């Protein structure tokens, strides 16, 4: 037995009989405390994966298992208790007129008693650093704050996995940083699996594992360091490497061999320093 929390077994999906396959024979597992980034070109099937995990869509072929349950019409309500999703547009996910009401929404839907509800709202807003905004109107918050409230709404139902489906795409750099810090902090504080679906190359470097999708198929499953050492291949499938990897690539082309593929500025600088002092 592995402690795989989500498993895709030979999953294929299309929207209709005469439509092209969006996912083709996709298999992978995600463990209960992993941070997995799913990347791929527009239309590669990334978001479909997210929708299949919590039963917004069902596959025509194959099987999806979440927390020991096969996802189908009968199990979706149980599955959704353990899967929290945050989408791209923060303005499309608000229902409450105050931050508190909004976070309460998911709890009310699940019939959580009032006392317990108030406590959970407090705790989850605290976890995303939004306790001071309890009575604020959600639509007046900044993009980053809105997405943090959306994450709090998801946290309140105590999920075992949180899926961020391009949740930072519409945010400014400060908003993106807020979300990444919030999410990193949560990963350390809670036992949570995290799936981030993203085009942001620097976001990917924080994940423990990367699933690269191409034309509906799993093209590569590896760690960020390995993924970003394949610049040429990534360009071929519409992706790219972040600045640090691109620079390291250029150095190696010019005959400077670094010890390892650097993932961030500190690592690149360390590698350069080592190289420099060895010369």
């Amino acid at each position: 037995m592995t402690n795989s929390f989500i498993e895709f077994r030979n999953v294929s999906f299309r929207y209709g009989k005469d439509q092209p396959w969006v996912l083709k024979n996709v298999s992978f597992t995600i463990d209960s405390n992993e941070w997995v980034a799913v990347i791929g070109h527009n239309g590669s099937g990334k978001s479909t994966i997210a929708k299949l995990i919590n039963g917004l869509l069902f596959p025509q072929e194959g099987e999806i298992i979440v927390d020991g349950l096969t996802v189908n019409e009968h199990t979706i309500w149980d599955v959704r208790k353990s899967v929290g999703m945050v989408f791209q547009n923060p303005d499309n996910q608000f229902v409450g007129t105050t931050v508190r009401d909004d976070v309460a929404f998911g709890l009310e839907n699940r019939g959580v008693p009032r006392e317990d509800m108030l406590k959970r709202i407090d705790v989850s807003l605290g976890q995303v650093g939004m306790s001071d905004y309890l009575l604020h109107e959600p639509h007046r918050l900044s993009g980053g704050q809105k997405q943090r409230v959306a994450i709090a709404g998801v946290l309140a139902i105590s999920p075992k996995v949180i899926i961020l489906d391009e949740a930072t795409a519409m945010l400014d750099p400060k908003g993106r940083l807020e979300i990444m810090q919030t999410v990193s902090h949560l990963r350390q504080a809670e036992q949570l699996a995290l799936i981030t679906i993203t085009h942001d190359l620097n976001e990917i470097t924080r994940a423990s594992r990367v699933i690269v999708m191409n034309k509906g198929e799993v093209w590569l499953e590896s760690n960020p360091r390995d993924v970003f050492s394949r610049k040429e291949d990534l360009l071929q499938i519409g992706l790219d490497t972040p600045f640090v990897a691109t620079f390291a690539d250029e150095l190696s082309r010019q005959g400077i061999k670094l010890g390892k593929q650097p993932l961030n500025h500190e690592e690149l600088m360390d590698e350069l320093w080592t190289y420099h002092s060895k010369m």
Partner: protein
Amino acid sequence: MDISFKNVTYTYQPNTPFEHRAIHDLSFTIKSGSFVAIVGHTGSGKSTLIQHLNGLLRPTEGQVKIGDYTLSADKKVKDIKELRSKVGVVFQYPEHQLFEETIAKDIAFGPENFGVGEEEVKKRVHETIHAVQLSEQLLDRSPFDLSGGQMRRVAIAGVLAMEPQVLVLDEPTAGLDPRGQQDIMNMFYQLHHQKGLTTILVTHSMEDALKYADHVIIMDHGTKYMEGKPTEVFQRKRELEKVQLDVPEIVQFLFGVEKQLGISIAYRGQTIAELATELVEELRSRNL
């Protein structure tokens, strides 16, 4: 077209409890034919600024000039329609505004609305579908059968079909994959030069501002915070940090090189490859 803002203030819902001053005392000029990036955080006034460019908003105080058109509180532009045909705005996620049955009809909608003749509209539809690098064979298909990136191109073609002299781009790459982002920015850059446009790019990406713009305006709290050549403005790390903006990664990296390796390389807009060469030369020359 030359564009100028002179002491412009804009207040939403003035004299009500909801009164909100989105921009204040904003002045700058944009020379005809330049490519200008406007950078700043959410809420810094960028969206309010660009809505003045085609007369969707009129300043509460001060004066906006776009070519021969003047916008001010007491003066309505007579030919607002004419202004709007000359200033094309590509809003965020423009593909959400597609609605016609076919791509050809969607592209034609703008110019038809501005009274352009049938033959001329046809000609423009064919020209612009090429300009956005899509196949003419798509013209009779529904825009909703396309991928997100292609739909965005169709929406952009619709703006180009009005043959604007000024092109305003509000976060045009949001939501696209890395190749899509690069392709669309390269396309705008080409169009800018081919058609001699004045291009105004609103972006969060310091990288894009650095790569494409010849002038950058940094907004903060509803007014201009800094402006200048991107290669110069983006060196001013401390000032940018004050308004919670980062310098581009490439500049950040050079600061690190100077601090940790004691090698100082001035940033003059080099490519990554050129910088790597300079750094390698520096490293080697030190160890001779």
